[in-house]
Every structure is written in structure tokens, then in C-alpha cells.
């Protein structure tokens, strides 16, 4: 891939426009047709892609306008899952927790049509994020497989099929979202094997995104994962975790989460430049990808935009400084 220094990217999600939320509610009540809803999603993607382009993002995604949430969205499209209802994550936040009730099988594409649509409307490089099998299983009930491990590997085969299809369609950068991995260091081997299966025969640049959890418990083990880049959050914990990665040579590209998605405060360009420089103590600048800690969907869209714009400006200025 053609890489500039410090490419800027997003983790995936972007705030949904208010009008889209309203339409989704109406759609769920059966008040508008599939066709109108599909058009609305397309329009929302166009708007969100334009925003990312205006902010200066180099490698982008469609903001996950069509995805309600990162577990159930995929589970609904894979044979063997069912969803009984919502389960709490914290406070008043819930998600529809899937249950594995039968053999997991590839049923329908998960991101191929999203990718194809996006390809038509932007010239930018595209990254396709997809939730990893380890996380999907960890965040689901397992009623069918004897062990979690078996379920993870079965699901890895399904995701592998999807990634191959994506590559056939032209995708060259795929991000596996696996936030559950750092939360179960005791199962790191299972996670590693799952990535092995997921990436088998997939000829693309592979990133792996992990947020939350205690990174010190999975480092340096994650360097053995069959991926090109590891993307992590740093701003959320005030960059304390940078120390963890200095201990061993970081042998992958680093996706460096440098703005905090859990606060509405807009970091200044200078502040973000300082943040990004911290990445250089882990790997040399040419291995650094600049992005927010995580998806932006929980922020008001004007805040998300300002944060992204400052992030991209910071990367641009640093790039110029480094290239002299």
C-alpha cells in the first residue's frame, strides 16, 4: 500500500445524524419501507464520509451508519445465533446479547456491500472494521458448543470467509475489532489461534483494534498475532500505558489512539502533537498510524468532527516537521 508518514484513520464508528436516528426509530415501528431506509443509510454514509474527508482523515470507513452495535449486528447475519433480549453493560446501557444455539455457519455477507458502496463514493483509502470471533463469542451466550474455544474457532472460519470475499472485492485493509482479548489474558492462545484462522489466505493489510483491559497482561504476547498492525487506546488512560510497550521491541505497526472518545473536550492541535510524539518512544514514526482511541459514535457529531480535524492537523504538522 502507498503509505505517507503518520497516516490518519478512524477506528470505525461515527455519530449518526439525528435525522437518521429518527428514521431508524420510524423504520423499527414499520412506518417506512426498506427501500426508503436503505436510501437514508446511503445518504448518511455520504454525509459522514464527507465529514471525515473534510476533517482530513486519510483512511476512512463509513462510520458504521448501518450497524446498531458491534456484536448483534454481525450475530444477526450469521447462522447459529439467536437474540433473546438485551443485557446490561453498565448503568442504563444495554446491548442485545446474542446466544449461540446451533452450529455457526456463514449465511450472508457482513460488510461486503458496505465496502462496495463506500468504494463508489470516495477516492480515499478504506479500512473495513469487523468484530473478531473471540470478542463475538465472549459477548454472547454459548448454548451449543462444548467449550468457548470450539465456538471461537467455528466463528473464526465464518469471519475468514467474509474477509476473503472482501479482498476479492478489492478491500486491502481490514481491522479486526477484538476488545475482549485484553480482558481475558488467560485465553490469549485461543485469541491468537482465532486470528490465525481469520486471516488464513487473506491477502490484505490486517490491523487489530483492542480497547479497554489491562494491556500489560497481553504484552508482549500480542506481537505473535498474525496481524500487521495493533491499534490501541492511549488517551483514555492518560498515556500511562505507553510504558508497557517500551519493555520489548514493538515489532508491528502501531495504531496509536491519541484522542479520548469518552470526553467532549476537544484536544488542541498542540496537545495532540505531544500525544502522538509519545508513540515514537514505542516505534519509529514510519510505523505509526494516528487515530482516536475508539469509535466516535457516542460523541455529538460536531465534537467528533472538531476532534478529528485537530487530530489530522496535528498529524499533518508533525509529518512536515519529521520530513523537514
Amino acid at each position: 500500500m502507498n503509505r505517507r508518514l503518520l497516516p490518519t484513520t478512524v477506528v470505525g464508528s461515527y455519530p449518526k445524524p439525528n435525522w437518521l436516528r429518527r428514521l431508524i426509530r420510524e423504520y423499527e415501528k414499520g412506518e417506512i419501507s426498506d427501500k426508503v431506509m436503505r436510501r437514508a443509510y446511503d445518504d448518511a454514509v455520504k454525509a459522514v464520509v464527507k465529514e471525515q474527508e473534510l476533517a482530513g482523515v486519510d483512511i476512512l470507513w463509513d462510520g458504521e451508519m448501518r450497524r446498531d452495535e458491534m456484536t448483534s449486528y454481525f450475530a444477526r447475519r450469521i447462522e447459529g445465533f439467536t437474540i433473546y433480549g438485551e443485557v446490561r453493560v453498565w448503568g442504563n446501557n444495554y446491548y442485545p446479547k446474542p446466544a449461540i444455539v446451533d452450529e455457526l455457519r456463514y449465511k450472508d455477507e457482513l460488510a461486503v456491500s458496505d465496502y462496495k458502496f463506500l468504494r463508489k463514493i470516495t477516492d480515499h483509502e478504506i479500512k473495513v472494521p469487523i468484530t473478531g470471533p473471540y470478542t463475538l463469542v465472549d459477548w454472547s451466550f454459548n448454548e451449543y458448543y462444548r467449550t468457548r474455544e470450539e465456538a471461537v474457532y467455528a466463528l473464526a472460519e465464518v469471519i475468514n470467509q467474509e474477509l476473503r470475499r472482501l479482498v476479492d472485492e478489492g478491500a486491502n485493509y481490514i481491522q479486526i475489532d477484538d476488545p475482549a482479548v485484553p480482558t481475558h489474558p488467560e485465553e490469549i492462545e485461543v485469541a491468537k489461534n482465532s486470528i490465525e484462522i481469520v486471516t488464513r489466505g487473506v491477502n490484505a493489510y490486517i490491523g487489530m483494534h483492542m480497547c479497554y483491559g489491562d494491556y500489560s497482561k497481553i504484552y508482549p504476547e500480542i506481537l505473535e498475532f498474525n496481524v500487521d498492525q495493533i491499534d490501541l487506546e492511549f488517551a483514555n488512560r492518560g498515556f500511562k500505558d505507553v510504558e508497557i510497550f517500551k519493555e520489548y521491541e514493538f515489532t508491528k505497526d502501531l495504531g496509536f489512539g491519541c484522542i479520548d472518545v469518552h470526553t467532549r473536550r476537544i484536544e488542541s492541535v498542540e496537545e495532540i502533537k505531544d500525544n502522538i510524539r509519545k508513540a515514537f518512544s514505542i516505534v519509529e514514526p514510519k510505523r505509526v498510524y494516528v487515530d482516536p482511541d475508539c469509535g466516535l459514535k457516542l460523541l455529538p457529531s460536531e465534537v467528533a468532527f472538531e476532534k478529528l480535524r485537530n487530530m489530522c492537523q496535528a498529524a499533518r504538522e508533525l509529518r512536515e516537521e519529521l520530513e523537514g
Partner: protein
Amino acid sequence: MSRVIPTTVGSYPRPPWFREYLRKVEGLQKEGGGGIDEATYAKAVAEVIREQRDAGVKVFTDGQLLWHDLLCYLATRIDGFEMNGLVRYFDNNLYYRIPKVKARLERKRNIIVDEFRVAYSIEREMKAVLSCFTLATLSEDEFYGNKADLVMDIAHIMNQEAKELVKRGAKYIQIDEPSLLYAEKEDLSIMKDAIEVIRQDVDAKFFLVTYFSDAERIFPEVLDFNVDVIGLDFVEGYEKNLDLLREYGVDKEIQAGVVDGRTTKMEDEEQVRRKVEAIDEIVDGETLYVSPNTGLEFLPYSKASEKLKVLCRSVGDINE
């Protein structure tokens, strides 16, 4: 054969309409809180009590429907705590705000008394659920600088609360202590003393309940704790807990968590029944409480009652 009594551990998933209601009045952010209408709350409590009763439960909990931070919810009602960033609750995909101890802890208002009053007006066989050691362990102490002092102050607060609860009719006080299963030996002596404090002048039946793991680390010390019932997780630690009971014997009653509160997979009733019989053979308390191993809020609403029905059916005719 003991009398077998089905009970619940604590949390129950919120009825979907109440979940939506809370989302509306409290929002989604960490700040949250405020403005909950008591009649609406009472209706939700009545509903989860009815769900338990219909399934066959005999000793109830109120479902902890307002407890955003799991056991750490208790900290939100105690002066001296401040709630901070989100962290994972044990090995669950469930998060709570870390309580930070900023000043000497004090009970300046009711903790769960008001909730208990609502539940008790609907159902008299109601457990009141508190916590002490776990609350201390899951908190970040920036004031006491030593765990024993922190635990003891919480114990005094829980004692005051327990007295209030008994005044309002409580017959059963349950102390939830999952953290004890991961504790050091010296913590056990702290907790032993703490229980004496919590119980002082409180005329109620005391349950000390553990879950998420086997109880190897608390045996045999826990047998000397001044409680009437010990709750053990016979899902995560079935063989180990049986061994412990065999090895050390137990002269207290047991609350046995025999169905998995964290999976929608329903147990085979015959197997659960055999499990209960195996436990009953070892313990000789007058009563054997049986329950899910954990609170039920890990499940979608419809699956919680299904799980309780499996539990109750599997011991259905055991008393006859």
C-alpha cells in the same frame, strides 16, 4: 433431608419497560441519577417479585433494580465515596464505576432501606442485600491507607443500615462477598471481625454469599464466621466446594448456587436435582437454600424467569 428452599441471590434484569423508563429519566452517562417516580419503581419491583414467585421462589430479593454499579452501588449512598471511571466487574462483560474513598466514610442517609421498604410492602420473605469486604476491595482507597480500617468503617455503616432494615421488618440480611474468594488469609480475619460488627444488636438471619469461583481460599476460616448461612457457587466450583464441605464439615446452613445465572443455556433438571441431593447429603442444616449461583441480571429478562423455573422444578418434589 433438609427443607429445600429456592431463593435468589440479588440482582434481577429490569423489566424492559422499566429499563426504557430509567434510560429516559436518567440518561446514559456516568453522571445519571435523579427523578425516579416511586410508584413506577414500586410497579417494577412488584413485577420482578411476581416473576420470582411464579417460578416457585420462596425467599426473595428485590432485584436491585436501581443498582447501576452492581455491589458498588452501595458506595453511591455512603458519604466519603466518589464514583470514578468504569471498570469491569470480575470476569463479566459488565462494568461499574470505581468508588474512590476520599474521606472518612459515614452513613448520613439510608442506603437500601427505602428500596427495602418498597419490596417488603409487597413480599415479607425478603432478603436485604449488603456488602462490606467486596465494597472495600473494589474501591480505591485514598484515605485510610490500610484495608482493615476501611473494612471496619464500612462494617459499622452496614451495622447501622442493618439495624434500620430490621426496624422495617427485615428478617434476612445477606452480605454479598464475591471478593472474599480472591482474598488473602489475613483478609479473612479482618472479615471475621467485620461480621461481628455488622451483626451487633441486629436480630436477623445472616447470609454470607460468595460467587464466581470456588471457596477454597476461605476454607476453613469461613466456618468460624458468625453467620447463619454460607452461600457457595456450585456452578463454578461444584466439585471443589463439595470436597471442602466433606473435608471440613459445616454446622451452618448452606445456600447452594446450583444453576448458572450467567448463561441462557438451561440446565437439565435431573442433573440439578442430583447436585442438590449430593450437597444435602453432606450438610445437615435444617434448611438448604438453593439458588442460581449469581444474580440474574446477566440474563435477558425472559430468560431469568426461565432459569428460576428450572431451579424450582428440579427441586420441586424434594420436600415431599
